[in-house]
């Protein structure tokens, strides 16, 4: 099996800047650059991670440990300050379902728009359209404007589009808690199915009971550093130990 994701020694610093105005920046310059206009901190610090094709990896860590930031580097939304990220094949982020949805458009228009945003061609969307609607259980509401949907319906449609993009690598960030109970189970079943099909998955979830069902390998992040990389049960054990 070939490598699907190769993250080598990446670091990312964020600036805690409070201003978006030229005036404040000028005042700061004139006052002799006093204060904390550019206080920085490491969101990712020398992180390396190699994922083989077909592997399912869980990213674990407390809030603010850098899990979402790492996923954004793998999807290409962010670029690292140093180090490099390489991926093979199409990467799709289920990072925040419905990010490309527009409230004033119908479900149908949103399927096309969001599908294209996630990298599907016109032909692919046409072919998969019925399957997308069926999986979402939206039914006749597909031609209703999305703003009239309940939040559950909205998430179901968004999730359905995302899983139909059929990429090689799936990045899943805390979306397994979407919708109501039955649909959640359906989503989880779909994710497991993708894993069984040999898709590469990187999963972030707070549901520590669910994680071992999907992933065998766990990577524990602590303040932007990899603290552990190995069997998922062990990673979860370490996380629980820290928490208490």
């Amino acid at each position: 099996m070939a490598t699907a994701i190769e993250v080598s020694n990446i670091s990312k610093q964020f600036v805690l800047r409070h201003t978006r105005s030229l005036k404040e920046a000028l005042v700061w310059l004139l006052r002799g650059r006093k204060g904390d206009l550019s206080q920085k901190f490491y969101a990712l610090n020398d992180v390396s991670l190699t994922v083989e094709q077909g592997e399912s990896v869980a990213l674990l860590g407390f809030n603010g440990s850098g899990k979402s930031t790492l996923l954004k580097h793998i999807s290409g939304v962010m670029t690292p300050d140093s180090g490099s990220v390489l991926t093979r094949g199409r990467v799709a982020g289920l990072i925040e379902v419905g990010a490309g949805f527009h409230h004033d458009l119908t479900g149908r228009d949103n399927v096309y728009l969001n599908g294209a945003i996630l990298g599907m061609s016109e032909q692919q969307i046409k072919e998969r359209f019925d399957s997308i609607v069926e999986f979402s259980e939206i039914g006749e509401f597909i031609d209703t404007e999305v703003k009239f949907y309940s939040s559950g319906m909205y998430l179901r449609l968004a999730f359905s589009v995302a899983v139909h993009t059929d990429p090689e690598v799936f990045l899943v960030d805390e979306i397994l808690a979407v919708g109501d109970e039955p649909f959640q189970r359906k989503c989880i079943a779909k994710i497991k199915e993708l894993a069984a099909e040999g898709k590469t998955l990187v999963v972030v979830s707070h549901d520590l009971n669910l994680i071992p069902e999907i992933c065998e390998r766990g990577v524990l992040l602590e303040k932007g550093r990899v603290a552990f990389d190995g069997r998922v049960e062990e990673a979860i054990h370490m996380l629980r130990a820290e928490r208490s």
Partner: protein
Amino acid sequence: MSTSQQLVRPGVGSGLADTIRARFLLKLLVRKELKVRYRGSVLGLLWSYVKPGVQFIVFYLALGVFLGLNKGTENYAVYLFSGIILINFFTEALGNAARSIVGNGSLIKKIYLPRELFPVASVWVSGVHFFPQLLVLIVACVFSGWHPSLLQLAAAVAGFVVVALLATGLGLFFGAVNVYFRDFENIVDLLLMVVTWASPVLYVWTMVRNTLGAGFFAVYQANPITIAVEIFHYAFWYPTTSGTAELPPQLMTLWLPVGLVVSLIVTVIGQFTFRRLEGRFAQEL
């Protein structure tokens, strides 16, 4: 599982070329803008025909007939309108393109897609709104006895391209810098306010030549918008007149190429700036 694919760096686009590769998405983004704008209105896109139609009739009566500007400039309403629709296009395109990255921030910081799509889509949307205005202009021209040559029609297309390129280049530039300092929105608004007066839209170019002198006039004339407006006069207004008006010398042989080159340079600078800044869009938005 295909292992034939290469390992690549994610999130590295190829600039404006990506908007051609992703033209289906571009089309959907443009359509979304149009749908959202006319949602809930019965007449829909028809409104964009009614508005310029009424605008033209007002110009014709108030400025041409009542104020008597027809006496100074033959068919003044046609003269004015042919410049104004170009300015409308530029103003709308640049204004929206400059806001497009910040406006689509919630998407840009979650999903990777070629970000040039947003300013380019803004220019396309304005192009769609330009069309009904052009149609109103053509109807007005025909009623005024328009008899254009093929060269004049081709010139009009070239003039439009000059303005579209300029709007794209400036839109890329301001769209990108606006992410870092929101002040640039106001700078663009200022710029757009000046644009109407920096070209011979409401007045005639000879007034500028007579006041400025040759040196400054060359600078005035190098503005791609000025060139495009004069070309529109040449294509739409001039063929409705008796042909006694003085046209800017070397408009087609010298100034049109100048306009194209200036717009192209602006596009290259805009693209370059955009590429330099886009790596940090997701964290700054």
